[in-house]
């Protein structure tokens, strides 16, 4: 069975500080991977997707970047956090023939 693990569970960071969020998928080779973000009271937005190692496509510009250093790993990062980066970040993978999305448990980020 496939499992998806996100870390950390929550972060409180200062404006201008760096950020790195991680996501690991186990039990699925060459998964399509996604980063989503939801501001408090906002709608879930897709940020990035990746279909293979080393390839990442940006969907929404939020002064964030993503990388896929390994087949089973997807990293979301920035060198300088903004207040507007606060929210809930979800990693997801797409499974099977049905293109169903499966989400990780999420990271709640608070930027002060």
């Amino acid at each position, binding site marked *: 069975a496939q499992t998806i693990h996100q870390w950390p569970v929550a972060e409180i960071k200062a404006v201008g500080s760096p950020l790195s969020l991680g996501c690991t998928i186990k039990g699925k080779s060459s998964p399509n991977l996604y980063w989503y973000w939801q501001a408090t009271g906002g*709608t*879930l937005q897709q940020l990035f997707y990746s279909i293979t190692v080393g390839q990442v496509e940006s969907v929404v510009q939020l002064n964030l970047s993503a990388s896929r250093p390994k087949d089973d790993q997807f990293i979301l990062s920035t060198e300088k956090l903004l207040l507007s980066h606060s929210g809930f970040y*979800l990693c997801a993978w797409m499974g099977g023939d049905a293109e*169903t*999305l499966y*989400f990780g448990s999420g990271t709640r980020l608070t930027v002060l």
Partner: protein
Amino acid sequence: GDQVEQSPSALSLHEGTGSALRCNFTTTMRAVQWFRKNSRGSLINLFYLASGTKENGRLKSAFDSKERYSTLHIRDAQLEDSGTYFCAANRGSALGRLHFGAGTQLIVIP
């Protein structure tokens, strides 16, 4: 502009009753998914539909690409059904953007 309009934004149901959530799309969508938010805030997949209907227990979903809508029916609502439900749809390849509705907050009343 917004491509997915989800309604109602909030819904109260008495235990044992049922209702439907609806998502209207401003453009033709290829497929729709329905999710429920769990206690941590993550999303649990309920249905994926490229057409037609699917049923799972007390939940049933339908998707009509031509008429640009999808529904999620809940019957015999139970207290544990309370939560926030989302629809999401994609126009082209699912590798591209998945457009989410704003969610429906369901409260089941004893």
